[in-house]
């Protein structure tokens, strides 16, 4: 296709992506190196009974005028990145010096908003991704063994947790797990602790969020694996049976290697999606116990006064995190592409 024709075909799509994906990233970078203007101070002279005193007051009007005129604020370089709400270089240094074990250091880190969000997000990614893959594989093997007439309805039901709106799916689970919900009260009577509640216990909040994560993404892994199972080569399977391999050995040495490339694909999609977890944190009302990186951006933007600069800095740090996760994929795709061109 000539370059000119190609350009006109792709132009609308490309324009949309440049304006609303590439430019905003630029906008985030610019916002993150600015800081809202400080309050304008004014010295006032007071004629008092004991002579003239001077005091400093905040000039509300001038402050508002200045902030309105320059909503972006003033240029501060990387200050926002290093402040207490983000990388908190100073506080981390102090914590490192003051603590003598890794556990105590991590405890101190958990009090810093950015690190708390980072630790929660990474734990979420690390816990949910492998469990999703395992559950998905198990369900796929199970459904594959069902009689034909049950397969369709089972697949329909299995798709539901993934297809529903994340905020809604998380709410549906939360209402059951809540103190007064059916599972919440079951948990209370099982443990014999009538005060047990999600809101009060950080570990419980984390565990239920992980459970939501696995529940909502396992269907994706299931569908991909199930499709993979339909294309398992029959010859090696039969050969293995002739050689007396047990069912487990056939799964282990024939089926699983066949599914391995799919696992890479599922893991990549899951890593990307789990890293930006936001909705369940809102549905579970868990912003205090289990904030994710996306949640801290959201709450910065949603506050009484929107903290654009702070949100932008966290966004940049999140984008850097995503890029680190994504680099291996890009390198791999690049190699594949070059290999194809070589032929």
């Amino acid at each position, binding site marked *: *296709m000539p370059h000119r*024709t*190609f350009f006109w*075909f*792709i132009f*609308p*799509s490309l324009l*949309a*992506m440049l304006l*609303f*994906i590439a430019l*905003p990233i*630029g*906008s*985030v970078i610019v*916002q993150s190196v600015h800081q809202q203007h400080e309050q304008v101070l004014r010295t006032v002279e007071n004629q008092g009974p004991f002579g003239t005193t001077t005091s400093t007051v905040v000039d509300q009007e001038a402050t508002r005028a200045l902030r309105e005129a320059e*909503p*972006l604020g003033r240029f501060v370089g990387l200050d926002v990145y290093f402040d207490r709400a983000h990388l908190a270089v100073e506080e981390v240094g102090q914590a490192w010096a003051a603590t003598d074990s890794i556990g105590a250091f991590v405890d101190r880190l958990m009090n810093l908003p950015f690190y708390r969000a980072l630790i929660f997000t990474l734990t979420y990614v690390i816990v949910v991704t492998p469990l999703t893959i395992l559950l998905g594989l*198990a369900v796929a*093997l199970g459904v594959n*063994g*069902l009689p034909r007439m049950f397969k*369709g309805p089972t697949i329909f*039901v*299995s798709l*539901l*947790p993934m*297809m*529903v709106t*994340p*905020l809604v799916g998380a709410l*549906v689970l939360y*209402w*059951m797990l*809540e103190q*007064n919900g*059916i599972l919440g*009260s079951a948990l209370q009577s099982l443990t014999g602790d009538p005060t047990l509640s999600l809101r009060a216990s950080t570990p419980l909040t984390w565990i239920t969020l992980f459970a939501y994560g696995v*529940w909502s993404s396992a*269907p*994706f892994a299931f569908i*991909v694996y199930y*499709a993979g*199972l*339909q294309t398992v080569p029959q010859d090696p399977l039969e050969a293995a049976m002739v050689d007396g391999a047990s069912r487990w050995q056939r799964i282990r040495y024939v089926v699983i290697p066949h599914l391995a490339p799919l696992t890479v*694909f599922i893991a990549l999609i899951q890593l990307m999606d789990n890293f*930006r977890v936001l909705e369940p944190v809102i549905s579970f*009302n868990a912003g205090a116990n289990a904030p994710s*990186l*996306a949640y801290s*951006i959201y709450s910065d933007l*949603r506050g009484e006064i929107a903290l*654009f600069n702070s949100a*932008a800095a966290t*966004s*940049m740090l*999140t984008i850097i995190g995503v890029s680190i996760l994504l680099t291996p*994929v*890009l390198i791999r*795709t690049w190699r594949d592409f070059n290999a194809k061109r070589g032929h």
Partner: protein
Amino acid sequence: MSATVSSQRKSTALVVVSTTFVVLWVLIAAFPFFWTLWGSFKVESDFFSRNDWTNALTGIRTQIETGGAFTGQAYEGAWIREEFWRAALNTTIVVFSTVVISLTLGTLGGYALARSGYRYAFWLLMLALIFRAMPHITLVSGYLLPFFEWNVWGHLPTAIIVLVAINQPFTLWMLHSFFLQIPKDLDESAMVDGCSRFEAFWRVIVPVMWPGVITTGLFSFLLAYNDFQVTALVLSQENQTMVPKIASFLGSTFEAGNVMFAVAAVVSATAPLFVLVLFFQRQIVSGLTAGAVKG
């Protein structure tokens, strides 16, 4: 295809274990929805019973408060008093426009990427992949300040354009791989007969592209319908779509009974998705696996 792994001989114990497991999974996947649907016709003190969870089954409080075992109070409150119908209308507008515009831009772009053969087409696809990985909330954090400054914040068209753009990377990938499957000879022979590239696309490719477009459209629909991050932050209160509206019910649950509005709204917002999955299960499954199985 006919002889799959399942057709090998199996021991009874294994069949029992694996069937139990699937039944358990089906319960875990489906029960929360049935429970919420059931509870949405009860009053709050039954569905979130402080005393006894069986109240939700028997509906004691619902009997006392409304005189029947089931009540439509929650739906009435959500749809009429809290004007959920307005949010539903907004969702319809946003989702419909997003899907139509996304597919129009996506088919043109995807077709060009599939037929180009130059190296830059690959780079554009890579760029789209990187764009797809961007968390939406970070993009929203880039929009808000400029949108406020330009006075475009809060309107439905703004949300539509943003959703179309966010949708493009995925749409391009999906349609690009779909167009690769349509033989090149088809449009090239039309061009030999004197069609321009666009005429060839319009007369030869468009009539045969619908299966791929429908599958891609389903996913565009889901992205726009399920979106929370863009619509919650970019739309003003009166233009809210369903999902941010549900989130806003949660903020006002101090008033008794309001949480039931959220329950009713959740059921209402989930119903269309059930119907969608019911009718398009095959397309959804093939769309989900297209990227994986074919490489």
